[in-house]
């Protein structure tokens, strides 16, 4: 198979429908998924998750590719993977992950900077911090730039309203009732899930673990987590639609 030309490879797969051959094709082109996933790093989603989305898009693309279209597979699959990644960001990632991630990164930067200073007696550069924290330099600089972000859970310490936090200071309006209604609907929808599904939701959306870490804790494959997550989201979406309509 390794020596087969791209065209004949896909023609052979179309003819035979051989899953083993499909898997080999996917492996041959996985580097494209990795390459594109890397380009989307730094938007608040871990590389593992991006790679998973890109690899799934690649798998679907192998089945959809028509070798007689006159384009190379790489040209065909790149926009497909890009589109899937953009949909992934649009659907669920930014609002959930970014603010907390930036806050966590800022805190890690402060700790690491102190450590480097105590080791070397010098203030670290963004490059040094990026290497130590295994993130990009841009993420370090952007997180530092994002100063002044205040957590709504942070206690207000002005001597007047002890025990209050910023969240309590936000004036309520009518939309708060809508939010309560939506939260009730969401809680009802979550109750329809199995224990395993609820566990996954807790890992992925409350603790914000990556798919890889969730898989490790649940003792299943990352692919299984990915499939299950899609299934759960679909189920929740349908249940929510139903309960909001009632």
């Amino acid at each position: 198979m390794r020596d087969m030309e791209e065209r004949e490879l896909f023609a052979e797969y179309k003819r035979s429908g051989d899953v083993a051959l499909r898997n080999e094709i996917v492996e041959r082109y996985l580097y494209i998924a990795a390459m594109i996933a890397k380009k989307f790093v730094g938007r608040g989603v871990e590389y593992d998750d991006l790679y998973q989305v890109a690899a799934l898009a690649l798998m679907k693309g192998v089945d959809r590719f028509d070798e007689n279209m006159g384009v190379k597979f790489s040209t065909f699959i790149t926009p497909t993977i890009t589109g899937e990644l953009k949909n992934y960001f649009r659907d669920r990632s930014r609002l959930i992950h970014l603010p907390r991630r930036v806050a966590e990164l800022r805190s890690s930067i402060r700790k690491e900077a102190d450590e480097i200073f105590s080791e070397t007696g010098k203030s670290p550069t963004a490059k040094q911090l990026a290497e130590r924290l295994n993130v990009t330099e841009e993420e370090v600089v952007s997180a530092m730039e994002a100063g002044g972000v205040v957590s709504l859970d942070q206690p207000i310490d002005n001597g007047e309203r002890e025990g209050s936090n910023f969240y309590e200071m936000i004036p309520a309006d009518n939309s708060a009732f809508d939010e309560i209604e939506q939260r009730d609907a969401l809680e009802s929808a979550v109750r329809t899930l199995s224990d395993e599904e609820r566990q996954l939701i807790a890992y992925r959306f409350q603790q914000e673990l990556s798919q890889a870490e969730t898989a490790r804790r649940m003792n299943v494959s990352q692919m299984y987590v990915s499939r299950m997550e899609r299934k759960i989201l679909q189920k929740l979406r349908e249940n929510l639609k139903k309960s909001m309509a009632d």
Partner: protein
Amino acid sequence: MQNIMTLEFPLKRDMMTTIRLVTGGICSLAGLSLDESEDCKLVVTEGLLLLLRRGYTKACLSFSGEGKLCILARGSDYEAAAEDRAEEEISIALLNALVKNFTMKREGDGDSISFSFGG
């Protein structure tokens, strides 16, 4: 069309973080959404990497526009290009996937790429 900023710099991978940060700032000035800004940063760096792979050692990057952000990147000071057609194909496909009006052409001594966001 109003010129917002023009930058000339050595075309090296080390410069990409700085360029991404500058681009992010300009996107913010131009009123682009967060998603558009992220895409714009990706397109700018990918375009510059394309010029780098084609063998250019210097680049000039211009940001201009009214209502939308127009970006032009030109490569200059050509040296021998590294041959990596496969990577170049993926780069071009990615750029076309992210912006509808991406163009690449040969102008004078060097290649140039242009595209716009917003508007």
